[in-house]
């Protein structure tokens, strides 16, 4: 099989598919690990050959799905710079941010030797890191909520306004309050580099959480 390049249409799609699937798993897991929702709503599932937790709350699931559905076109076009899961306290001040920083892989093409299993390996490592991240993070105050932010590149936001992927699920520009975090500490969790995507996950944590 010949080598595929980024210019090929389905290349971006494939990468976006893989990434969004991963993000879904990751968000569920973050919500579980950071105890945003009671652990009762989570079920143990297996993904990437490791146990993960997934919420059974249909509305929550729908929200996550919709969100990612909208993120996907951005990722396809390589317009999303960061996908951030922000955990906020009662006052809607962020206490933690899980930042998935997505960048283009350095090599612009993939070949037949690009194995999905290899990517899966890397994603698995990331999942495992998330599931143990509570060890390096301080506990969150009670009553936290979460939101998902997307840092886009350049003028991608404008296009998002025009093309609503899902009806009645528009995006809004994030409040400065949601984005800004004082005295944040950065904890790198994992970096992965594969043929189709390069991504690193780090957590920014507010020094004083309570």
């Amino acid at each position, binding site marked *: 099989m010949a080598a595929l390049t980024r210019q*090929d249409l389905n290349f971006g799609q494939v990468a976006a598919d893989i990434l969004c699937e991963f993000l879904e798993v990751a968000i569920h897991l973050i919500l579980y690990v950071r105890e945003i929702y009671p652990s009762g709503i989570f079920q143990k599932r297996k993904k990437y050959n490791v146990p993960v937790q997934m919420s059974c709350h249909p509305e929550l699931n729908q929200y996550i799905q919709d969100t990612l559905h909208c993120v996907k076109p951005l990722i396809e076009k390589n317009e999303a710079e960061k996908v951030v899961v922000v955990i906020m306290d009662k006052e809607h001040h962020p206490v933690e941010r899980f930042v998935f920083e997505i960048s283009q892989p350095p*090599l612009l093409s993939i070949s037949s*030797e690009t*194995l999905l299993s290899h990517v899966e390996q890397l994603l698995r490592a990331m999942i495992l890191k998330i599931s143990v991240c509570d060890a390096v993070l301080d506990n969150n105050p009670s009553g936290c909520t979460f939101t998902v932010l997307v840092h886009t590149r350049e003028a991608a936001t404008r296009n998002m306004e025009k093309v609503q992927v899902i009806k009645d699920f528009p995006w809004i520009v994030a409040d400065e309050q949601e984005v800004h975090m004082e005295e*944040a500490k950065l*904890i790198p969790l994992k970096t992965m580099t594969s043929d189709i995507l390069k991504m690193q996950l780090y957590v920014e944590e507010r020094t004083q959480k309570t």
Partner: protein
Amino acid sequence: MSRDGWRKKASEDDGWGGRGGYMAAKISKLEEQFQKDAPREKQKDGTSSCIFSGVAIYVNGYTDPSADELRRLMMLHGGQFHLYYTRSKTTHIIATNLPNSKIQELKGEKVVRPEWITDSIKAGCQLSYVQYQLYAKQKSLNFTSICARGKQDLSSTNDPFKPNPSHPHIIEEDAERPRVNGIHDGDDDDACALLPRGSQDTSLTNGYVHPVNGALKPQDSFAEHSPHVVDIGSHQSHLPQTESRDREEPSCSSAGSKSNFHQRSLISTASPAKQPGLHSMQKDLHPKPTSNPGTSAAPQKGNLHDQTRVRLNGSYHMTPNSSNLADSSHQPGRSGKGAEAGVISEFFSHSRLHHISTWRNEFSEYVNALQSRRRAAGGAVFSGKEKLKKLKANCSSGILSLWFMFVRQSCILHVDMDCFFVSVGIRHRPDLIGKPVAVTSNRGPGRVAQRPGSNPQLEFQYYQRKQKQYRKDGDLEMTPSPQCEEVPSNGVDLDLAALSMAEIASCSYEARQAGVRNGMFFGRAKQLCPDLQSVPYDFQAYKEVALSMYETLASYTHNIEALSCDEALVDATNLLVELGVTPDDLARAIREDIKEKTGCSASVGMGSNILLARMATRKAKPNGQYFLRSEEVDDFIRDQPVSSLPGVGRSMSSKLTSLRVSTCGDLQQLSISRLQREFGPRTGQMLFRFCRGLYDRPVRSEKERKSVSAEMNYNIRFTQVEEAETFLTNLSMEVQKRLEGAGLRGRRITLKVMVRKPGAPVEPAKYGGHGICDNFARSVSLAQPTDSGQLIAAEAIKLFHAMKLDVKDMRGVGLQVQQLEGSHADPSGQGPSRGRSIKDLLLAKQPAHSPKKDPLAPQGWSSVIRTGFFKSSPGLSCRVLDLTLVKHTYCKGGLHHPHTLNHVRTCLNVSIEVPSPSQVDQSVLEALPVDIRKQVEQSWRHREEQPSTSSHLSTPPRTSSSPPPGPSLGTLVLQLPNQLGQPCTTGFILELPDFSQVDPDVFAALPRELQEELCSAYRNKGNTQAHVQAQSSAGDPHKKLFPGNSPAKSSPSKTLPLPLKQPGLKTENVQCPSSSSTDVPETLSKFNPRPVPTLAGAYEFSDIRTLLREWVTTISEPMEEDILQVVKFCTELVEDKDLEKLYLVIKYMKRLMQQSSESVWSMAFDFILDNVQVVVQQTYGSTLKIT
């Protein structure tokens, strides 16, 4: 773009050389040569006899002494030596071992051991061969074998080297002779075996004094040989030169004084007797078999082969072979091993193909020599340039020149002689001008009798089939095919089989019109074009003409790149600006000059880059010139066939045809992604650029070598493993010689073996040829670069055993050494003993290590690849292997910096490293500011670094320094003042063994300052040798694979998946991001938007950790440079968005440094952390949480 891509695609590789007529011609030729050489040989040796008169031997397989020695002995003692066995003429077969089938075949022939000859010489008379018969069956027939004297001889002469021709003869009466004769009358085919000596004497003289060689009087030949015995390297006496001229004259009688002048000024014949045996070998080796028609060509040819040393206007280039050649033929009683090695080196020193292929190097050398001479003379006189200047002044064509002054774009001239071999061949034969002429070895009508015993049809069919198949599915495999289009498709043309198989090396344009092509067999061509005239090869003349062409070019500018013997690239950009002439004027002047000086026409293509210049040449031909203006490029290139692009060979053009692409215009329609999908990223990119006329390689007069190899595919018939091993040893010695000659050491050894394809005939159609073969290759990487033949041999033999081949089926053996590095063993630059002693101390452990380690290595690694890793995920393993290749390339690239860079941009490099004077481009030096230059010169003089210099050295941007000394060179400067004076800093650094091989006890015992030196040296070493470090840390399976033997088939051009590719790139890029664009092959750098950050060459976390640990634990006080280096690395990690690694590194450092007893380290860590935090803060708006 590798040079190979440009190589002519004609059909140099047809794998099926001539036979039949070619053979017949060759045999007679060989006899002539033998006879011609004999008197000389006799003269030289002083002792001669006629004891073997009437004896004609044929040496079969490996013998001791070697076939060459035997040949020489036969020369000396009145015998004949047949390189090819002829039942009717050959009287004795000399062999030490014969396979059973051969014994059957040779039933009734006299097969004797070589001792027969040596003993006979010793005895001063021809002994009975009965004693020395090889086979018991024969012995049983010959009862007399148990005669007292024979026994005695046998026992006394087990050492084959004892007999020495110059030895006083131990005269024993050969009373036995008649008896022997009597005994063997029965089974002899011919009666000429043992005739009374006296009767043969007259015929002997007649036979051996060749008419043409009348000029070669005994004293002449003596004079010619003696200097070489004394000192072949330096002797350039006038005598041999005139000598060669004398000998030349009869052959090219019509040659004017000009050619003689050239010869005198350029070439002095160096070496003695050529060996017919080897002649024929080389002929068969390459697919352009040649034998000179006409006796008149003989001395000429002799000259050519004698020219292993060529004197090029003051600087002469000596191939390593020539010395050996002289050795082997001038030292009668030398050891057997050497004699064997001599076979190989003689083989190469005689090979014509080898010669022609080395010409390019010679001409490159020539250009370099010119440049250095100019530097020495402080500016050269460019006669041609001056002339042109005057011309221009006369007819001041202001407007034209103004145009070019304004445009001032680069202009490359591609100068190519028009059908070089032909035009040289007929330049003194005006009668042939305008007629279809072909240069070939065949002199007859193109028909020959078929040699019995061979099955050419079968081989022919094989190649035909292969070619068809190849055409059908566009097989990418390199297929040697005898003819391209001309193969008759209806099975085997029996008639064709009888046609001459001599190949046409070159044919005139008239012949081309008739459908004759280069590389076609002469017989076939004769059918196509009955008027076709054949012209013999005239290598001497080729050389002359080529040299005068280069001289002509050099009279304009020294910006010349030698492409081959008949084509060169000239960067005329500056020249044109300076002269203010148009490219067309310049080209015209050059062409006129060449025509005048050589009598041959040249075509010149001009363009703004090399690619366009070459394409323009196509249009210019024949005998024309064409300037491809940049505005015409688009139109021009659209109509060019894709096959005219460099690198587009048969396989690629057939693949392109399947994509319905035939012209560059078609190719332009394809998107780069499509091309990359079809051909891989690099090739795709290359095509994409080429078909738009984009090519940015500069003209470079100097070239780096990628590999050094020796290969022999002729007459390889082993019967025993030991023979193969001996052969490999000898071949290794040859490789060693070449490495030494090139001043290089290699790290990777590849053994290539041709093995008879199962089912192929045991004896190929071509005598001694390799027939239909499978090719196998195996490689191994060494821990240290080497040029030791012994080491190479040991590895090669191991590889050989690992291949588990049947030695009997081996048809060709080649050894290649890659990953070359400059050998530091330049005796002139012996650094101060202090610097070296450390290295020696460490190296003392090396020999014990490497042999132990390496034997296991190849098998172990390969098995890892094959079994576990390969099976589970082929993709990954391929990547690893590819990576190895890429990495090697890069490392190599890095190491070659000091040699290869001669662009102005590298001047910083030079000043930083302060290499030995010989390695510094003088022009670069001149370009430096006066004070810097002085400093550099000073450093050479004193081999002592001045403090002022070091301060200077640290001022240039660190990024532009070349990898080997690295940015942390400052450490070296301060601590190892003497070290900098060493001829090659890289050499020193590379000589260090791996970390793992440093005995900690030894290390601990060193004085502190030495330890520090070592550490900094290791850090430097890391720059270039990351993979060595990887090798040394055994934990990671990936890393173990790096140095492992990646099979040769894994192509480096394949897509390199990222994670593993990065390490390869980093070696070069990070350390010198600014210069990377100049040195890295541009295609690759394109695919590397961001290099992976490295710390002193280390990229894997474990390596970095090792490095840091060494740093912190061995040094009491960190250098500021080192700290900055770490900070830089961390910053790069942030930029590379690899926070995870950064985090790990920081945490590791924290642990290390804060544990350290020295408080300095804690401070160092705080400093690093502060800096890193600032960068992180800037990038992410938050700081790292360090707990």
